[in-house]
């Protein structure tokens, strides 16, 4: 994820458009994201079948009008399963980012602002954790908590937190040494005011974009864990679990493997695109 969060400059032309003129790609991303958010909130309204009802007579039917995206090996409607799986997948994405950013914020601020005797050890620990492969951290957490949506959420969150913490640390250091923080000191503001008014909000600013970027990546990570069999309990249609289940039938039912993957890619893409756009707007209006 480092790349996506360090890469900032977008085409300058995008910046110059007014607030109401949004690039087409972003508009589409917002639509896709809204669709999935709606699916997460009221899956029943968007689905055509129950996601759990099995129908052994219509197993592995290809996409058609009665089953938009086909059915799985026990006749469950894939489209409805993807819709119902959205809630869990998105919750994992959101939750993981919430966990990651919360812990990363505490650690990042501490590493950047705390007195040396606190900051130094935190910095070292972050360094150690950074050397841990993300997946391994996640694996350990699943092993600790057992496979479930909650542990997926925590394991992805904790697994990606060290990277974010380093970013927040860097951002905080940057803000800390910025002209406006110095100006605030020079004005005679006390430290806590400066932290509250300047350091915290400005160090957080890129996190808005990071959050959106990270949701997509978290969904991908979580589905990777599901794929390794460390996912949520069946019959949950969490997307990674759908992919894992679809693998066995891929030679005769391509749709089972393609569509859930496409859903993951769509979510990752749309949230990334939105995150980028937010980032550009923030960077664009704030640091031209």
């Amino acid at each position, binding site marked *: 994820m480092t790349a996506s969060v360090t890469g900032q400059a977008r085409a300058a032309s995008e910046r110059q458009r007014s607030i109401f003129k949004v690039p087409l790609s972003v508009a589409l991303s917002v639509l896709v994201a809204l669709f999935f958010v709606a699916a997460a909130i009221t899956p029943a309204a968007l689905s055509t079948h129950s996601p*759990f*009802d*099995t129908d*052994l007579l219509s*197993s*592995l039917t290809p996409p058609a009008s009665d089953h938009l995206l086909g059915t799985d*090996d*026990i*006749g469950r409607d894939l489209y409805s399963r993807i819709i119902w799986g959205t809630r869990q997948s998105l919750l994992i994405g959101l939750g993981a980012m919430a966990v990651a950013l919360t812990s990363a914020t505490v650690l990042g601020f501490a590493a950047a602002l705390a007195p040396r005797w606190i900051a130094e050890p935190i910095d070292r620990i972050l360094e150690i954790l950074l050397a841990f492969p993300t997946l391994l951290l996640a694996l350990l957490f*699943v*092993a600790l908590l*057992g*496979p479930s949506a909650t542990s997926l959420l925590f394991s992805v969150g904790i697994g990606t937190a060290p990277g974010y913490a380093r970013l927040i640390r860097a951002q905080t250091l940057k803000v800390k040494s910025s002209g406006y923080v110095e100006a605030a000191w020079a004005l005679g503001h006390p430290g806590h005011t400066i932290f509250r008014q300047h350091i915290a909000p400005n160090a957080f600013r890129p996190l808005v974009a990071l959050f959106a970027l990270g949701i997509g990546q978290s969904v991908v990570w979580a589905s990777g864990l599901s794929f390794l*069999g*460390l*996912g949520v*309990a*069946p*019959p949950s249609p969490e997307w990674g679990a759908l992919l*894992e*289940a679809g*693998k*066995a*039938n*891929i*030679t*005769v*039912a391509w749709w089972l493997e393609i569509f859930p993957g496409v859903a993951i890619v769509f979510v990752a893409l749309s949230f990334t695109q939105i995150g980028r756009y937010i980032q550009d707007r923030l960077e664009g209006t704030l640091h031209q």
Partner: protein
Amino acid sequence: MKRIAMTARATSKVAAIVLLAGWAPLPAFATGSADQDQRVDGGTITYVHQQEPPCLWGGWVQQAYLARQVFDYLVSYDNGQIRPWLATDWSQSSDRKTITFHLRKDVVFTDGTKFDADAVIANYPVWEKGIGWHGFTYMQGFTKVDDFTVELHLSEPNPEIYNVLANGHYGFQSPTSIARNTSEQKCLAPVGTGPWRVEKWTRGAGISFVRNDAYNWAPPNAHHNGRAYAQRLEWRFVPDATTRWGALVSGEADVAYQPPSVQWKNAQRQFQTLSFVATGRPQGLSFNVSRGPFTDQRVRQAFVDAVDRKKIVQAVFKGTVPFEGNGSLSKTTPLYLNVDDNYPFDPAKANKLLDEAGWTARDANGYRAKDGKTLEARLPFNQAIIDAEGAVALQVIQDQVKNVGIKVDLIPLTQTEGFAGAYSKPGDKEISFGYWVWPSPNILDIVYNHQLKGQPNGNNTTFFNNPEIEEQIIDAQREPDPKSRQQKFNTLQQWFTDQAVAVGVYNFTYNVAIAKNLKGLWQDQGNGLLNFYDAYFVKE
């Protein structure tokens, strides 16, 4: 013997006939022997298997598959008959607790050590230590009579002890190796007398076997004697079924373990197939009869009535595994009783039984309830033991019992949790799902005995505790008369079915698809172990 963490599957047409007969009366040869003229000497057989065990030899069935290639056994199991192998003949004491084996004198380990009574005796402690369930065989040890005669001592009479000794785990390692080699060497490349020896094991990739050119002591049920036909055997580990199928189709592999169910029909059409229904307990539902709602027999029966087991097995496994109604013994196990017609799909009856049992209220989600408690069953399953299709079958069961108001929570366990024995206490679950490969009907003694050496018996997944029935099981096991013994075991199997303590769903089945130019491959009828010794390529 013991549960196998691997996939359960299907049976070919040939195997179906086999099943009707109770247990395999016919050898499941891949082909006849008419092609012998075309035989190519040498060549490399590539076999793609699913799971990779930690060591080549041990108590896991995955290890039996491998061990069978490098070890030989005292006796050979040949479609219901016990045939000589490393033992030329044997006799049994009158109390049936001591068996005297006379050993072949011409057998040499691949490290040059001679096979003799001392070798047998040297192997016993290894078995005891390395095979977790060794105690259930009632073996107590060997004593040496002379250089080529040993006596095996049993704590209980065990008519199936020969099946046990033939089953893949009880092979012989070189005593020199046992004494001198490092544990790493014994793990990766144990030294046996068998037709193959390990050349190299690359973890994550596979094992290269080369043939033992000195081999000349094949069992009588083998197709030939002397060294193996093929020069090399490449045993590759490929966890994904689709990939294994692809490897076979592309010609990279000659034999593929468990093709995807959706391809099984193709496999039968385009390739040769072999299927073996494992002995022991089938994949089945074991209800917790010590606490919770399933202490009530009516609830257990209602659960079973509510599930269309035959159709589920057909739909999910697409003919790769047979339906099994018996929860105690699988179709190939000695003394099996077929109860497939019991508990036909009958949701109306299930509802009636549940009403009678007092589960008449409904909770907010529409599930049945009594005294404010939802009729709910936790069903943990070990993902290392129940494969993806097994998990799918469980989801259909979950969906079907929902229709009669029973809530099932499927709880997947990680490998760590599973092997660490999570969810194994009576308070942890209402239903268990699993199987156990075991060659004899004394499996009932293993799984329904409430105690083991004074401790709660971990294998008793129903938490069954009925001293009277336990007594009957031991009595049946000790019964010397085969007819009465069959009768006694039939009674027991019917009793467990009627009580719905445990019901079967499908049989654990070992399927392979074989390229058309490979002939002579056969499956051992004890564990389904593949015997590559007789396999050979033909000119096409």
